[in-house]
């Protein structure tokens, strides 16, 4: 039976306090990192662990860190992406609310590895409790010598600042986040240069998700072989899965990477409500293409889901049962992307507006002949033609809905009503 590591403290009383974290072995990784390893050795450990970024893209973390120039004229920065705006996703909020020291320790070790002395946690402004708990943890860590000057008697200096977002999904895109941190409207930047070379204030910058950073203390304390021993070889480690929607036990589950989606939904989250059947599951937040029920025997890891035509994304698993209209679900998802488009590029800004109008028309029973072809055409016009992945995510999701549940869209148009109402 798998024993949770990342969520060990989340259901413990006062799990957010330093005393609780230390009592459970917290900050042992930081001690070990500073006393036994050089920064390059930490990067090597993380590379050997094969930790892949948990923010959605799955890029190897150690490799990302190694892109930061060893010598730079400017200060290096570490940014923690805690914006978490992908619908279906809530893992980072729970970690920050209930075990924030795990993140502080992960950031301290990561900053030591890349040579950063200043870090910003970009956290969504709605997460008031998480913000308070994180600020409290930073203050506690500073008072105990885990942050500040000469940490644990070493020559490593490091401070963490909390920076609150203000309600823009695009800030989860790493370069848009940097613009937002610099006090601008959050819009993605052209790459290259990549943030590792020219990021925040044009300085070398590493941006990692909360879940990625909280894996780091455990890799240092337990070793890369322990991490690689969990889940599939190409994307190993513990994984946080957010399960929501029409399921009996929605919640946050820590299980090995690669667990079958069916096992996660039916065994751990209790399956659909009584008398209903699962119709479809969105496996990785609303950017991830939907999987119809027969496809649920797929491993929840980057490569297995990519091979199945979808993606792990944020591991925000949304369960849809057989009482629900898939046109309604698709419309709501596209409404989200339309609302959150930053407006920088035309295919996303105008294309999604057009898609929303067609979908709303179909859902209302006012669809016209040719609407399906128009949606296909719009997906083609958006996918691959937008400045960042927001448009791609929207188009990929809609394409999957149109492919797997085309008969529901057609029924709306032909019957001139929603068959589910």
């Amino acid at each position, binding site marked *: 039976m798998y024993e949770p590591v990342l969520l060990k403290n989340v259901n413990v009383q006062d799990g957010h306090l330093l005393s609780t974290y230390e009592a459970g072995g917290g900050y042992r990784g930081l001690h070990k990192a500073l006393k036994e390893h050089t920064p390059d050795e930490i990067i090597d450990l993380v590379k050997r662990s094969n930790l892949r970024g948990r923010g959605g893209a799955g890029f190897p973390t150690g490799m990302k860190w190694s892109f930061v120039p060893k010598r730079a004229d400017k200060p290096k920065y570490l940014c923690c992406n805690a914006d*978490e*705006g*992908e*619908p*279906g*996703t*809530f893992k*980072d*909020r*729970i970690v920050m609310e209930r075990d924030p020291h795990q993140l502080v320790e992960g950031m301290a070790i990561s900053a030591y590895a890349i040579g950063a002395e200043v870090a910003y946690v970009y956290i*969504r*402004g*709605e*997460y*008031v*409790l998480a913000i308070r708990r994180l600020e409290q943890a930073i203050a506690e860590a500073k008072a105990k010598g885990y942050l500040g000057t000469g940490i644990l008697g070493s020559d490593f200096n490091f401070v963490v*600042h909390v*920076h*609150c*977002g*203000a*309600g*823009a*999904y695009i800030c989860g895109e790493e370069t848009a986040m940097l613009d*937002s*941190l*610099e*006090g*601008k*409207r*959050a819009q993605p930047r052209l790459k290259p240069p990549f943030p590792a070379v020219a990021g925040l*204030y044009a300085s070398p910058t590493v941006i990692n998700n909360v879940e990625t950073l909280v894996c780091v203390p455990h890799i240092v304390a337990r070793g890369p072989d322990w991490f690689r021993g969990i889940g599939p070889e190409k994307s190993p480690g513990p994984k946080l899965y*957010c*399960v*929501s*929607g*029409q399921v009996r036990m*929605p*919640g*946050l589950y820590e299980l090995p990477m690669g667990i079958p989606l069916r096992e996660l939904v039916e065994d751990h989250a209790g399956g659909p409500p009584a008398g209903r059947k699962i119709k479809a599951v*969105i496996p990785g937040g*609303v950017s991830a293409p939907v999987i119809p029920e027969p496809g649920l025997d797929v491993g929840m890891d980057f490569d297995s889901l990519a091979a199945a035509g979808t993606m792990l994304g944020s591991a*925000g698993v*949304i*369960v*849809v049962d057989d009482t*629900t209209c898939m046109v*309604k*679900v698709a419309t*709501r*998802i596209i409404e*989200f992307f339309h*609302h*959150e488009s930053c407006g920088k590029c035309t295919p996303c800004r105008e294309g999604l507006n057009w898609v929303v109008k067609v979908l709303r028309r179909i859902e209302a029973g006012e669809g016209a002949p040719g609407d399906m072809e128009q949606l296909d055409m719009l997906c083609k016009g958006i996918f691959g033609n937008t400045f960042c992945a927001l448009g791609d995510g929207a188009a990929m999701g809609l394409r999957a809905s149109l492919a797997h549940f085309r008969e529901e869209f057609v029924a709306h148009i032909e019957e001139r009503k929603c068959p589910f109402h």
Partner: protein
Amino acid sequence: MAMREKIEQAAARYPDQRSAIMPALLIAQREHGHLPGPVLEEVADILGVERIWVYELATFYTLFHTEPVGKFHLQLCDNVSCMLRRSEDLLTHLENVLGIKKGGTTGDGLFTLSTVECLGACEMAPVMQVGDDYHGNLDIERIDALLARLRAMVPHAAGADLAAVEPPGE
């Protein structure tokens, strides 16, 4: 601590004052309830940045309100996970009991009702944010109880000095 002092303290975290605009706007909004033009200009003046930079942010990010909102801003999530657990029924109920439509504010200035994109609390869907607090696993009974609790915080709403009443969680 005065608003200026809070903003200057926040600005010390950044090598560039422009980075402090968003934190400053959050402080100013907490202080004033919303962000009218003179407040935006005051923020720009405190930070010594271009006023247009402040306007740009105040009108881009959804947590900033340039128009007044009610004492209690009811922000109901209606994104997919909440929708699947019938948030639309809760919206209809809220519109009926408050006598306003989505986006409106009650005549006594107590409640503004909005729908918002995902609040990142899908495990307790349907969920609503009021002030700093999340309220999850909502149904009509829980909504009614919550509204009663909020109303009880303002005993004489019609004639009360609403500006003197802090929202829950403050």
